């Protein structure tokens, strides 16, 4: 992969002995701990950033396990009740003739969450261990992960909507299973993991004037 060096060398706030506010973009002298304009806590690089990322990441994975193994929807009809997990439901759909929808469900509820865990781990890992991959592409990856995060909540919302709509007391009812809560928590933890990541770490080590790592 090519290195995406800007045409003109970029001076970073750190090498200028300044610290930038991550909220409002104002510059302050190095060593400032609170932004004088917006009041946010500022740090040139957040030393605890990666620890928080890994902590939320682990929490997200722990929450994601019951999201897969527990039932997402419990359907009660006159014929009895039926519990279906995310994967189980998708396989059923695949077998009974809607492979397209089954595939979409698998991608949205399994593929994307797993990819998010993978991407966050990759970003945190490469920042501490170094990599050949260009900062530009890693930054793009980070932005995609951050953007997609909240959209994963759609699964939980769909379950909630189905559950509240399909309430024909005797004939058929749908209730959300425990996996819906686990899934929601997993999404929240993954979002927090992505937000904890200090993206400035991706760009460090480009500028020879800076103290390398």
């Amino acid at each position, binding site marked *: 992969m090519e290195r995406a060096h*800007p*045409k*003109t060398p*970029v*001076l*970073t*706030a*750190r090498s*200028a002995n*300044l*610290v*930038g506010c*991550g*909220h*409002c*973009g*104002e*510059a*302050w002298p190095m060593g400032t701990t609170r932004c*004088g*304009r*917006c*009041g*946010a806590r500022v740090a040139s690089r957040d030393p605890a950033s990666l620890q928080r990322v890994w902590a939320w990441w682990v929490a997200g994975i722990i929450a994601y396990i019951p999201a897969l193994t527990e039932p997402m929807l419990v359907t009660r009809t006159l014929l009895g009740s039926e519990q279906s997990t995310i994967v189980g439901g998708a396989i059923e759909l695949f077998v009974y003739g809607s492979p397209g*929808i089954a595939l979409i469900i698998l991608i949205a509820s399994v593929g994307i969450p797993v990819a998010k865990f993978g991407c966050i781990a990759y970003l945190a890992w490469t920042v501490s261990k170094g990599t050949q991959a260009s*900062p*530009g592409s890693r*930054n793009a990856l980070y932005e995609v992960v951050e953007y997609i*995060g*909240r*959209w994963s*909540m*759609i699964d*939980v*919302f*769909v379950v*909630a*909507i*189905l*559950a*509240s*709509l*399909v*309430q*024909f007391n005797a*004939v058929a009812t749908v*209730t*959300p*299973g*425990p996996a*819906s*809560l686990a899934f*929601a928590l997993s999404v*929240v933890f993954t*979002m927090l993991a992505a*937000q904890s990541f200090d*993206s*400035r770490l*991706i*760009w460090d080590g480009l500028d020879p004037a800076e103290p390398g790592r």
Partner: protein
Amino acid sequence: MTDITPSSDFEGLPLGQGRLIVCPQCDALYKVGAVDKGETAACPRCHTVLAAPRRKAGMLIICLALATLILIFAAVFHPFLTLEAQGLRSSASLLDIALGFSHAGLRALIFLMLALVLAIPAVRASVLLYVLTPLVFDRPPNAYAAPAFRFAQSLKPWAMAEVFALGCAVALVKITELAQVGFGQAFWMFTALVGLVVIQDRFLCSWSVWNALTPRHRS
């Protein structure tokens, strides 16, 4: 014209007055002159938008925030989706949808969902109103406007009204084979809300707001 340049001669520039801007994404330092209304200044290194002031943005955002509040309030009580199957009919308002979880004993989800879909978007709109209204009418900023605006911006990823609207569409596709499904008034309100949120995000330039909140002494 966008006058945001990588700078090495920042010495002597006063700090804390918006004369320098640090890219929050990649820490690159830029000297800020003027950015014309309608222009967009992005960091040349990581392409993060640094400043995108828009003409009449303040007034527009105030109107959108007011509309958002009204829509959220109305959407709570009106039916969202209606379902008809074999002569049976059910309709659900947002409140019903959230309370649906109480059957399963998953009360935590009720709170989470009400917060993400209703409370957080409503709080964010109110805080934006509080911060921006004096600025638009050329009054001095309200007390605690700076932390309030920071709070509003940090709520942004957690305001999930538009995610919920898409969820409705997905749920509809899923059950459309089983039953006749129709959209209630609240669904259309929410669709409008999504539009408002998208426009608001396009017009809200936090760089401009911070500048307006900062007393700027031109030398």
